């Protein structure tokens, strides 16, 4: 961890030991160390830089200063829970656990503590059912949406017919990696393609068996639900066996710059989903001016504009909007976690508002309701151009497959409600 971050943590601890301050406490459960640091660092940089920019430029949100508490999880579930336990007493308004494993552990805890969770594009998919998961939000999209978007994209590539096609899923053998399997099984029945899930054990450094299997079975398309080193190795192995890169599509956690650069030119043409559009955004100028040039960058500033930096910034913007909405609803600037939950449930992200924030088209338009905490579920398909060293968006925001995923969300959340004696319904306070 960089000295600046250590200093920030030390300062936060020192402040916490004194009189509680009337500020907006937003923990950042980051991972800048360990096997997954390459993905965790840019996300955290974007998340913190944006919130720091709000402090410097606008004096926080609604006149209240934001206090970020960074806690290093190392992408380790136990450490993530420790981070939650050690920071919730600081007045944390919401948590973004940035890990499906940590999310699963925090759902009952945060629900009991009445602190909202925002699990953007990860976590428990059926948490989209807000009547069961009152305190969990997974807008703007979830894994099952991602599976639907990929299949819809492939339908578009094949004149609407996937009948008889062979589609393999290379997935991280964990709760995260297994999330889309049910959806893809249902989609394979609907569209008539042959679906074959292929598991890769953590961390995914060695995948020879899996790619020999793919070479033998010759699927038409390979999807990937990977994270960390699994992504880089899979892309290299796909290139090694000569699998056509344009037929290899990762989800939004398998499509950052560092996933493709180790394979060099061989990664050219690889595709992935993205829940947020990338590119030069006006807000970057404000971040440079108010944060980087002021020497307040969370990292060294080199991640600005990358896929995961932009996603971290997008996550911070969604937190900002939820807090602002909570302030608006309750007529106070010093909001509580319960008020922020109300703000999240009343959130409406419009194209005009994103433009106003200097982030035109960074995400799809969506609104949250008591029943639906999942957002629109839209995603874009992007492709890696190794020559120019950048991702290029191939599509606009594509629809998921609600017809398939809605009943699955209903079924899974109903099972969770039954197991935990929850009577589904909107939160009444």
């Amino acid at each position: 961890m960089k000295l600046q971050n250590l200093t920030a943590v030390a300062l936060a601890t020192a402040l916490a030991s004194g009189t509680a301050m009337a500020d907006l406490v937003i923990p950042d459960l980051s991972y800048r160390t360990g096997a997954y640091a390459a993905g965790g660092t840019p996300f955290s940089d974007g998340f913190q830089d944006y919130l720091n920019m709000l402090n410097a430029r606008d004096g926080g949100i609604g006149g209240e200063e934001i206090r970020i508490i960074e806690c290093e999880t190392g992408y380790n579930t136990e450490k993530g829970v420790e981070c939650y336990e050690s920071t919730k007493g600081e007045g944390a308004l919401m948590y973004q656990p940035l890990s499906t494993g940590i999310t699963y552990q925090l759902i009952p805890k945060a629900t009991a503590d009445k602190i909202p969770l925002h699990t953007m594009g990860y976590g428990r998919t059926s948490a989209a059912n807000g009547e069961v998961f009152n305190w969990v939000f997974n807008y703007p999209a979830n894994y099952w949406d991602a599976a639907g978007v990929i299949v819809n994209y492939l339908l578009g590539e094949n004149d609407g017919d996937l009948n008889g096609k062979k589609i393999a899923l290379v997935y991280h053998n964990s709760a995260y990696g297994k999330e889309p399997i049910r959806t893809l099984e249902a989609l394979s029945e609907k569209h008539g393609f042959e679906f074959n899930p292929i598991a890769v054990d953590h961390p995914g450094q060695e995948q020879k068996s899996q790619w020999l299997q793919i070479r033998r079975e010759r699927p038409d398309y390979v999807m990937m639900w990977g994270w960390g080193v699994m992504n880089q190795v899979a892309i290299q192995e796909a290139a090694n066996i000569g699998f056509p890169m344009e037929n290899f599509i990762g989800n939004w956690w398998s499509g950052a710059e560092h996933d493709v650069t180790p394979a060099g030119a061989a990664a050219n043409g690889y595709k992935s989903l993205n829940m947020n559009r990338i590119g030069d955004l006006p807000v970057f100028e404000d971040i440079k001016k108010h944060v980087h040039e002021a020497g307040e960058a969370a990292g060294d500033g080199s991640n600005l504009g990358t896929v995961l930096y932009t996603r971290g910034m997008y996550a911070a913007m969604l937190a900002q909007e939820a807090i602002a909405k909570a302030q608006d609803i309750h007529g106070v600037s010093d909001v509580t976690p319960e008020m922020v939950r109300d703000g999240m449930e009343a959130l409406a992200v419009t194209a005009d508002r994103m433009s106003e924030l200097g982030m035109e088209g960074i995400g799809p338009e969506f609104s949250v309701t008591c029943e639906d905490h999942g957002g629109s579920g839209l995603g874009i398909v992007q492709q890696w151009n190794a020559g120019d060293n950048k991702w290029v968006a191939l599509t606009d925001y594509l629809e998921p497959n609600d017809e398939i995923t809605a009943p699955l969300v209903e079924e899974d959340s109903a099972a969770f409600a039954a197991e935990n004696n929850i009577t589904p319904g909107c939160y009444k306070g």
Partner: protein
Amino acid sequence: MPADFLYGVEVVLNGLMAGVMYALVALGFVLIFKASGIFNFAQGVMALFAALTLVGIMQGQVPFAHLINEIFGTEVHHFGWEVPALLAILLTLVVMIALAWSIQKFLFKHLVGQEPIILFMATIGLAYFLEGLGDLMWGSNIKTLDLGLPQGGSRWIEDATAGLGGDDFYGFFIDKLDLVATLVAIVLVLSLIAFSQYTKHGRAMRAVADDHQAALSVGISLNFIWVLVWSLAGLVALVAGVMWGAKSGVQFSLSLIALKALPVLMLGGFTSIPGAIVGGLIIGVGEKLFEYTIGAPFLGGATENWFAYMLALMFLVFRPQGLFGEKIIERV
């Protein structure tokens, strides 16, 4: 010949080469354990540290740049030059030797005579320290290792063997990087054997491995030999880091390759260089064949990690010292 049989042969060939990659990591453990009785938990992190240092030197990165910039308010990241691969490898070796000297001087010199479990715990601490040091020196971003090593399936082998089966057989897939790794491992093992058999320091190293006190009594410096052994383990770590880093980029998950070496050591024995090689090959072939015949078709796949340990345990039941390990006989 039936395609299924030929694909089985392909799995065996790839298992053998995966085994060589595992053995590369296991060799470092064996060198240190044989000479000093220390099970070096930090061997995987040493491979990571060596690879990070190599890429950092090649790219002209300023070590501890973030720290320097924070303290002095500067903005230095690179020296502005790039170092040729061969020179960078030599400079990395110098760093690994300096590291070996430091480990001996500041850590194990003070732990002479301690119980093996204390020494083992010290290497756990060393592993975490080295991981943090690597992060602080070179950063946690993924680095591309460009040594010009060939990558991808050998088209020549694929074309030459495609005719062995019917239309369902596409020829044998052999990764060129695995072939290079095999050659490098052969050269490395032969060099280590030649060093230990035919050089003065090599013979001294063997003497220390056989009996510390006897070696001491004939004037061999234990301190020097242990620095030498840690340096050789650093060399092996560099080779392993380069080969694994070429596949995935140099990143912090490289340290986890040590997990692939443990079943190899359990099977081959902790004190035998040939044991590490043979153990690696058995584990490589065993786990890949199991995945091909049983794991993927019947158990949902991803069986390699646990099967490697199960295979090692099965050997352990019948031969606790491993295939090539020294049998411990204690007399009362």
